[in-house]
């Protein structure tokens, strides 16, 4: 009876680990898309001021660490299940059960929290290789839809701004569901700060474009101006000097 219970728990954990592995894959896909967008912008702005690659590498590294931990858990779990099937009295079973006791307890906790009325108000156990249920919920649902939306290529500043808003959204959603101290938290905070700074630059470009058009419209609408359009011309020139044309030709110029 006890053996049956352990096997059932192992099967549950197996399902959880394969789901977490898939979810980490989705997170990696989102990070890759963010990496592409940031490198495109660095190419357009021709600046090395906002260094994004170390932070992205930190996030990729954290995802790799989590994935490898999950893969290790899966391997050990398979070993445990095999031992239970073939050698029920093996001395390996007890240590392996001990290894999975915390993970199983965390899984049980998550299941219990998910059934509560406001699951987002409860903190789940911070166990290596496990993702909180709310993070998994986001990565298995909304994140996949977002990956699909990011697939289209970006051709203008307004589109880039929408993409950055999307990136900020997924980063904030994951950050909000991860407990402080989780291996993914710190790189996500750094990336969030960086994306915010790029977003400010993109908004500035959109603002400049709109201001140039508005100055032209105003000048046309005013029949006679005492300044003979000096201020209009001066400000338009100043704004035009600040325009960075959007060109999605990454790698083509090199």
């Amino acid at each position: 009876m006890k053996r049956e219970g352990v096997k059932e728990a192992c099967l549950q954990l197996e399902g959880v680990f394969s789901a977490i592995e898939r979810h980490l894959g989705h997170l990696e896909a989102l990070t890759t898309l963010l990496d592409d967008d940031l490198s495109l912008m660095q190419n357009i702005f021709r600046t090395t001021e906002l260094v994004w690659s170390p932070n992205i590498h930190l996030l990729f590294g954290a995802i790799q660490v989590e994935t490898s931990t999950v893969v290790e858990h899966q391997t050990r779990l398979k070993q445990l299940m095999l031992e239970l099937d073939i050698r029920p009295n093996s001395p390996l079973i007890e240590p392996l059960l001990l290894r999975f006791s915390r993970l199983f307890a965390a899984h049980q906790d998550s299941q219990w929290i998910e059934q509560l009325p406001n699951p987002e108000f409860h903190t789940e156990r911070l166990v290596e290789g496990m993702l909180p249920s709310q993070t998994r919920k986001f990565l298995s649902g909304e994140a996949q839809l977002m990956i699909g939306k990011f697939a289209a290529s970006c051709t203008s500043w307004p589109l880039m701004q929408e993409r950055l808003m999307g990136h900020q959204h997924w980063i904030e959603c994951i950050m909000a569901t991860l407990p402080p101290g989780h291996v993914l938290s710190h790189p996500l905070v750094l990336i969030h700060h960086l994306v915010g700074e790029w977003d400010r630059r993109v908004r500035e470009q959109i603002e400049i474009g709109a201001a140039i058009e508005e100055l032209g419209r105003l000048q046309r609408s005013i029949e006679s101006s005492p300044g003979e359009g000096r201020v209009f011309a001066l400000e338009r020139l100043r704004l035009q000097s600040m325009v960075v044309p959007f060109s999605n030709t990454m790698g083509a110029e090199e």
Partner: protein
Amino acid sequence: MFETRVFLHRQLDDHIEVVERLKAVFDHQLAPYCAIFAERIERQVLPVLADGIEAATILDQAEVRLPDCTVQALMSHVEAALRLKSWKEVENHEA
């Protein structure tokens, strides 16, 4: 900004009127000085007021948010125009 624009328009009209009055002086002793004074007003005062009005118009009527640097530049035009003394102040000072 609308009140500022109205005020600057009044200032501009006052100065144009003064220029016309100065140009209408034909006294052979005063006329050269009046011409120099009128030319100075035309070259140094009227453009500042005109630019100030134009900048205030842009700030007043723009329907999109202008970049901070543009707003600052336009405000500096308006402030330069506002810093100029009104013709009445000059007259009172001279009196």
